[in-house]
């Protein structure tokens, strides 16, 4: 008779247990997202049914239609402009700065430490003096005011990430281009940028997502004109729960682009969120 391993040690049992744990965990982490999405498709009756409706009878888009009709959906557009423009500027300025830090050791370690430490500052402590400054300039509730702030706040991350990607580049390519007749600037555009383009793209996406997800700066520095979708969501918070549908629909509008962009970037995800600590 062949000896049997104890039940719990058998490979089949182990795999079953691991699947059970994996499914339970995934349910816990996914269910709230499911709930958010499903509410946005529910009718008011379904939302305020007791006991709750676990899945709607039919998908209907009335909640979204209301957002577009009232003009609330414009806040998503505002978020897009703010995050998009600031990301582009931060990528250009941050990448050339990172290049200088890596290739010429500009400012040495002190400058690098100072730059990354700016990433760790509490937004509220920065937002308050900036708010006072913007009041003085009349920049509160303006696109350029927020774009400048988002750009500045994104820069440490961009510089930090691009520093890592540029360090991975072979120096010889740039030297070869110099000998072949490029100026320093041409080396940047013709060699460095194309060489780091995947890192550039991944970093840009994360920078965009961070700005897109911001709430505090937008809360402090906007009034009516350039409200972002995150601020708009909180406008529906109230005593009564009547705005559930709007909260859910607006949140979904703000979440879908993030899911899409991150899904395309699985390979860079870990490097992106660990600020380069793990190279994927």
């Amino acid at each position: 008779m062949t000896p049997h391993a104890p039940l719990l040690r058998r490979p089949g049992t182990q795999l079953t247990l691991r699947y059970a744990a994996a499914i339970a965990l995934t349910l816990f982490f996914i269910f709230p997202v499911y709930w958010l999405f499903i509410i946005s498709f529910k009718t008011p009756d379904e939302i305020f049914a007791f006991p709750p409706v676990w899945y709607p009878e039919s998908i209907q888009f009335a909640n979204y239609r209301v957002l577009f009709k009232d003009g609330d959906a414009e806040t998503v557009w505002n978020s897009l402009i703010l995050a998009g423009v600031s990301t582009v500027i931060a990528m250009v300025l941050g990448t050339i700065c990172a290049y200088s830090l890596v290739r010429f050791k500009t400012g040495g370690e002190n400058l690098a430490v100072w730059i990354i430490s700016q990433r760790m500052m509490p937004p509220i402590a920065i937002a308050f003096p900036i708010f006072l400054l913007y009041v003085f300039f009349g920049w509160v509730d303006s696109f350029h005011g927020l774009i400048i702030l988002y750009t500045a706040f994104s820069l440490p991350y961009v510089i930090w990430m691009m520093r890592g990607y540029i360090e991975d580049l072979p120096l010889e390519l740039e030297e070869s281009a110099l000998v072949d007749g490029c100026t320093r600037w041409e080396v940047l555009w013709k060699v460095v940028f194309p060489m780091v383009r995947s890192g550039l793209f991944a970093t840009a996406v994360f920078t965009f997502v961070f700005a897109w997800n911001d709430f505090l700066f937008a809360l402090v520095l906007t009034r009516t004109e350039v409200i972002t979708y995150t601020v708009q969501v909180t406008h529906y918070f109230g005593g009564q729960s009547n705005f559930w549908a709007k909260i859910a629909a607006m949140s979904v509008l703000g979440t879908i682009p993030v899911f899409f962009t991150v899904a395309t970037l699985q390979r860079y995800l870990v490097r992106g969120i660990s600020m380069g600590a793990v190279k994927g």
Partner: protein
Amino acid sequence: MTATSGGRVTGMSESATSTMIGAGGVATPIGHAPDRFFKYWLIVPAIFLLLLVGLFPLIYSLVVSFQNITMMEVDTSFSGFIHYAQLFKDARLWQALLHTLLITVIALPLELVLGLLMAQLFLERMPGRQIFVSLLVLPTVISPIVAGATWRLMFDNRYGPINQILGWFAGEPMTILWTVNPYLVYPSIFICEVWQWTPFMFLILLAALSNIDKSLTEAAEIDGAGYWRTFFRIVLPSIWPVMAIAILIRGLDLVRIFDVIWALTAGGPGTMTETISIYTYVQGFQQFETSYTAAIAFLVIALLTIIVTWAIRRMGLAK
């Protein structure tokens, strides 16, 4: 010296070992290395913008904190240290600090341990692993304010699914006021925080664990080391550099926590869940205690700059 084939003179220069320009009596042309300012041009725009968020708030907060600006009056004359003296007497501030620390020291280890356990679970290959991992990532990438809003819906006393599920187990309808009940408001915040950020820890630790050289753990196994011994002697030290950075990033995120609490409780009930960020906001934008808020902002920036710089240097992050 050996004569060369074409009669060309070559040879050793024994005259100069000095590094001075023109050493050995040879005239050096006057000139400069080409493009020597190039590296500064590259950093100027970025540094200028960074000073806006890095230096300006610090200096301007300091200036304003020595003035006396409130909603009622604008007095820009030097008013000494009254706002800093006020800081020490402000019980609400100290409580906010305490709340912030409480959230940090509880949520951070929770996320870390849970993330590590999940990483262990998914470390070995299993069919469909990539799908699980992709789904688990979702909470981390959505906006914290949306995460808070989502859990606001989840926690609703009457129409939220949490109470409904608890009701199934209890056998009677439950109407727990999660975000209002003083005993449950912190657990609600922790659930939301852990839900959003455990996947962050999980992803990073999974990558770190996968990068461990297998021969190390196999050698330990052959040497007869048990599971825990292997874990503490080999696995943990191997992932520590990465884990330390994850802890630093998350720790600092928690210290400045704002969005989730704003969405879930807005600091309530009363001021029970007011963190330092929420309190600063309330002082600056609801009570309009401008100079006092500036004093708080200055202290927070100054303190965090010191701590963060120390931590970054300590971990050798800049190398």
